[in-house]
Structure formats: structure tokens, C-alpha cells
């Protein structure tokens, strides 16, 4: 029985599509006809989506055209998959939520507004797919790691449910030696490069690693190959706010750092470092000037 697949791409980089089609397993399934790509502007000639069994949606919602695309596509599939961190949580393009869309547009076009020239208008801020439509599966990762895609393909072929792991990267990390002593030093990643030991836990060397606040599933790919985790798998399913989680984790680990200013020196860009991939999904998903309205007070004030 062939499973028909459609791939819809919103504001994307094609990394997730490439992760999928570069998998050996994926190409084997394609070759023997177990899956059939019915729609993908990347690899097929179809210009319009028709009914499919499974719809992969990559990229985040950045323009009104993306919204229209989703509305048209939503009813055409039995299963909707938010594929990749941009689709699940907003991704790196979500950092645009620190700026008003007027400022972004003004710097490209000077004074010409895109609605006049027929270009799709930007949404007020970037939003991840699952905040506006119900998805059947979320597969995070930037791009989704191979073990996770394997699990997804297994689930699609067998019909069994796909579930995300419930643990953090630290629990899969080979550099984790189980030592839980508090740490005295936190420094900026650039400075730490000068003496970093890639075979030792990064936090222990005073280097920020997002592992404690990041979902497992990648087998700690980056730490096992020499780089601290930057949090691309997003938060654990039980959490709503990856930045909140890592702030709490840092408080629990680095509470003996003196003076306190050193913590801030090590993290010169809190929003960019602690919610690099998940700002649109966070409790406060934007800068105050982008998404907050000041209103008059009613009722009693004292």
C-alpha cells in the first residue's frame, strides 16, 4: 500500500526537505513505491496540492500568503506533520519578532510598501504552525535528526503512533559524567574557544550549553562532535518555554558565580541565545513594541 505524501514549505530554508530526501531509508521507500511524493515544489512538477495521506509542513508563518497556503492545504490530508523546528516553534526566523515589521520592510524597500507592488504582506510577527492549526505530529530539529526521522517513517509505514522522547539532551550526552556539583564560572562562548576541551561537558568549562532545556532525540549530536548544544530541538514536550527552562537551569548550576555581572557578560544576547529557535513559541513571543498594546486602566487604582 503506497502512502502518498505532500510537502508544503512556508518561510523555510529547505533544510528539512533535504534532511528527509537525503535519508537512505527514504530513498529505499521511494524506490520500492512504498511512498509516493504527490506534491513538493522542490522535486515534483505538480503546481497544486491534491488529496494526500500525509502532509509535511516546513517553515514558519511569516506572510499572509503562508496563512492562505495552510488554509487551502489543511483539508487535503489525513495526517498533518509539523516538520522541523521552524514549523513547530518558529525557528531562527522567529528572531525577527524582535523588530516591528514596518522597520523590516522599510529597510528593504525604502518607502515603497509591498502591498502596492503585490508582494505578500508580512504577518505582524512570526508564528509557528501549531499555534494556529491542530497538527497530528510535531517533529522538531534544525534539521530533524536522522533517528527522529527514522522513527517518523516507521510510524507512517506501520501505522503506530509517533511519540517524542520525554528527556533532555543531557540524558543522551556522552560528555555527561553525572557530576552535579555547582559551577563557579560562566563565560562567553567566543572567549571560551581559547581553551575549550571538546571532550568534556561544556557547562563544566563555563560554556553555555542548551542541553538541560532541550529535547533529546538527536543523540546529543553536537556535543558528541565537539560543539555545545544550541537548543535546535526546542523544549521538552512538558514545557512551554525553553528560555524559562534554561534560565532556571543556569540558576541551579551557576549560583556560586561571583560577581553576578559575570553571568550577564557570558550571555550578551539573552533572547538570541536562550530562545534562538523558540521565540515565537515562548510565553512572550515578541518584543513589547511588536505584540503588546498599551491600554487605559479601568476600575480602581489606588
Amino acid at each position: 500500500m503506497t502512502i502518498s505524501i505532500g510537502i508544503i514549505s512556508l518561510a523555510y530554508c529547505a533544510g528539512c526537505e533535504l534532511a528527509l530526501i537525503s535519508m537512505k531509508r527514504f530513498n529505499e521507500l521511494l524506490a520500492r513505491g512504498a511512498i509516493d511524493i504527490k506534491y513538493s515544489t522542490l522535486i515534483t512538477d505538480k503546481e497544486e496540492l491534491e488529496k494526500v495521506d500525509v502532509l509535511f509542513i516546513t517553515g514558519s508563518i511569516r506572510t499572509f500568503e503562508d496563512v492562505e497556503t495552510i488554509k487551502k492545504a489543511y483539508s487535503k490530508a489525513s495526517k498533518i506533520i509539523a516538520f522541523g523546528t521552524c514549523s513547530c516553534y518558529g525557528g531562527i526566523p522567529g528572531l525577527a519578532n524582535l523588530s516591528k515589521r514596518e522597520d523590516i520592510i522599510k529597510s528593504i524597500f525604502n518607502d515603497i510598501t509591498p502591498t502596492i507592488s503585490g508582494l505578500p504582506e508580512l504577518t505582524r510577527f512570526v508564528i509557528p504552525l501549531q499555534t494556529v492549526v491542530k497538527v497530528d505530529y510535531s517533529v522538531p530539529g534544525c534539521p530533524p535528526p536522522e533517528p527522529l526521522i527514522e522513527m517518523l517513517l516507521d510510524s507512517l509505514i506501520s501505522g503506530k503512533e509517533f511519540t517524542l522522547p520525554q528527556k533532555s539532551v543531557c540524558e543522551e550526552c556522552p560528555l555527561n559524567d553525572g557530576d552535579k556539583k555547582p559551577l563557579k564560572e560562566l563565560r562567553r562562548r567566543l572567549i571560551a574557544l581559547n581553551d575549550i576541551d571538546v571532550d568534556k561537558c561544556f557547562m563544566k568549562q563555563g560554556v553555555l550549553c542548551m542541553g538541560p532545556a532541550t529535547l533529546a532525540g538527536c543523540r546529543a549530536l553536537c556535543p558528541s562532535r565537539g560543539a555545545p548544544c544550541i537548543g535546535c530541538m526546542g523544549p521538552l514536550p512538558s514545557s512551554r518555554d525553553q528560555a524559562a527552562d534554561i534560565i532556571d537551569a543556569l540558576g541551579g548550576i551557576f549560583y556560586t558565580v561571583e560577581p553576578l555581572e559575570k553571568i550577564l557578560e557570558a550571555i550578551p544576547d539573552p533572547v538570541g541565545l536562550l530562545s534562538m529557535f523558540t521565540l515565537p513559541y515562548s510565553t512572550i513571543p515578541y518584543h513589547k513594541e511588536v505584540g503588546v498594546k498599551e491600554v487605559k486602566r479601568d476600575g480602581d487604582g489606588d
Partner: protein
Amino acid sequence: MGLEPRVLAFTCTYCAYAAAEAAGVSKLQYPPHIYVIRLPCSGMFKSYYVFKALREGFDSILWSGCHPPYDCHFINGNYKARVKAELLKAYLKQLGFEDQRFRLEWISAGEPDKFARIAKEIVEEAIKTPKIIFLEHHEAVNK
């Protein structure tokens, strides 16, 4: 509707909450706009509560615990709160929120007057700070 502005105060059982209770018992006036939540220790305060409180319409949030270095009943909970608070402040500042919306204070059980004073200060500042509402996700796509 409830009183406005609304302020949420997280207090630790052994110091700050005791101070708040003592303030109430000794009839020290502090504004009724403060909602007090009691947790075993300031080390238990979670950053998510601050984000959620702002989102849900609280104008400002107070975290209060035992004085460093020796007062914390759980030894180092207040040190953990201190680091979290520092990062929270920087994070909220980068998102454009006014400094006075989040405050960390050390208040011992024997300082009910300090609790009352800070409570008054916070509410006064909150009145001067604009009331804000947050756009929901689906409102990103309203024209």
C-alpha cells in the same frame, strides 16, 4: 474586574511570607493589590511564572526570599533565585519591558515593615506603568 494594578508577590515560607503575615497581623498597611503566593523556598521560583503572570495581566511581579548569605532555610535557594532573577531581568529588558515589572528583594521574617514598604512602592510604580495586553498568536494574522 478586580483591583488594578495587579501585582503578584512570590514569597518564601520561612522569611518573606512570614514577614507578609506579620505585616497583616500587626495591621501594617499595605495595598490590597498584592496577591501573595507562598512557596517553600525562593530557590523554587520558576521563570515561567513571571512570563505567564505578565501575560495573564499582572502589571508587575515580586520575588522575595531570605537574605544572603546565611538566612535561607535550604542553604542556597536564595542564591539560585538571585541568578535566575538576573537573567530574567536581562531577558525582559531585551524584550522591551520596563525594569519595574520584575523585582527581587530579600525580606526576613523580622522585617514586616520592609514588606509593607516594598509592597506600597511596587503598587505605586505599577500605577505609573502602562497597562498592557498581549496579542494572541492568531492575532498576528489580523490585518
